[in-house]
């Protein structure tokens, strides 16, 4: 009974943290577009949070640069359990064109575990929504 309640509340209120680890801002704009009333993402209980301590899902964009690697790990550790990571865009998935550069570690999965990948350059807002919803479906 309690487990069902916990599961229900997790699925109904995934608060997200938007994290840019070195993206070109295109994916960030699409994430912001996904939060607009046009898509009305709040009907799924999604709220954008300003601090990792309030968030359940980290929505990451961009390749991981060497400078931000330790900071990403710190942000990931600040998020309370259970936590999930969605990698948005081609760069966050693999590093894309920046892969192999001397100051880029690669995709987000090189640094923190990733639960869902959303392809696209940049990913469409409905694709991002779909990624978050598919992640919630796994719970």
């Amino acid at each position: 009974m309690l487990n069902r309640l916990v599961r229900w509340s997790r699925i109904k209120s995934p608060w997200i943290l938007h994290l840019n680890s070195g993206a070109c801002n295109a994916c960030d704009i699409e994430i912001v577009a996904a939060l607009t009333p046009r898509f009305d993402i709040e009907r799924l209980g999604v709220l954008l949070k300003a601090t990792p301590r309030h968030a359940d899902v980290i929505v990451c964009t961009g390749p991981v640069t060497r400078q931000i690697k330790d900071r990403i790990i710190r942000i990931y550790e600040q998020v309370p359990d259970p936590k999930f990571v969605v990698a948005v865009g081609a760069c966050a998935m693999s590093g894309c064109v920046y892969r192999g550069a001397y100051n880029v570690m690669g995709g987000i999965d090189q640094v923190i575990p990733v639960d869902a990948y959303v392809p696209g350059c940049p990913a469409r807002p409905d694709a991002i929504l779909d990624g978050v919803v598919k992640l919630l479906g796994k719970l």
Partner: protein
Amino acid sequence: MTDIEIIEKAKGILGGKALDVANPAERRIFIKIDPGSLTAAVTALRDQMGLRYLATLSGVDDKEDFELLYHFADDHACLNLRTRVPKTAPRIESISHIIPGAILYERELQDMFGLVVERIPDPRPLVVPDDWPAENYPLRKDWKFDRPEEKIPGGKS
């Protein structure tokens, strides 16, 4: 002002400091100078020709020397001062006391090529990460990058 007038004016200002003048394209003027006379040339061009705007400073590693290009822009043309610094003694005088905005380019030059910019007011690294190992200069041609092994979540298929 046509290109020829600009070249004549710059030659008059620089005198013997201008080793070679080229005009490879319209409104683009290359002037070769000696690294020792760089600060004097920049001061003279700023005061007498009004070249205050340093568009950028680029560095080239051509395997024997470092070539530095100071791109000055004004309403009429883009005037580039080119100077060559030997790799064995990579030192250049700072111009940031003449043009304060040059300091960002000079700090980047130090990070990327390992050039020593003398009399720079703030020599801290600018673009390389905080944990970057010393003596690694990414834009040098003889620098090799050992790419770390990538983790593939779930293993290779």
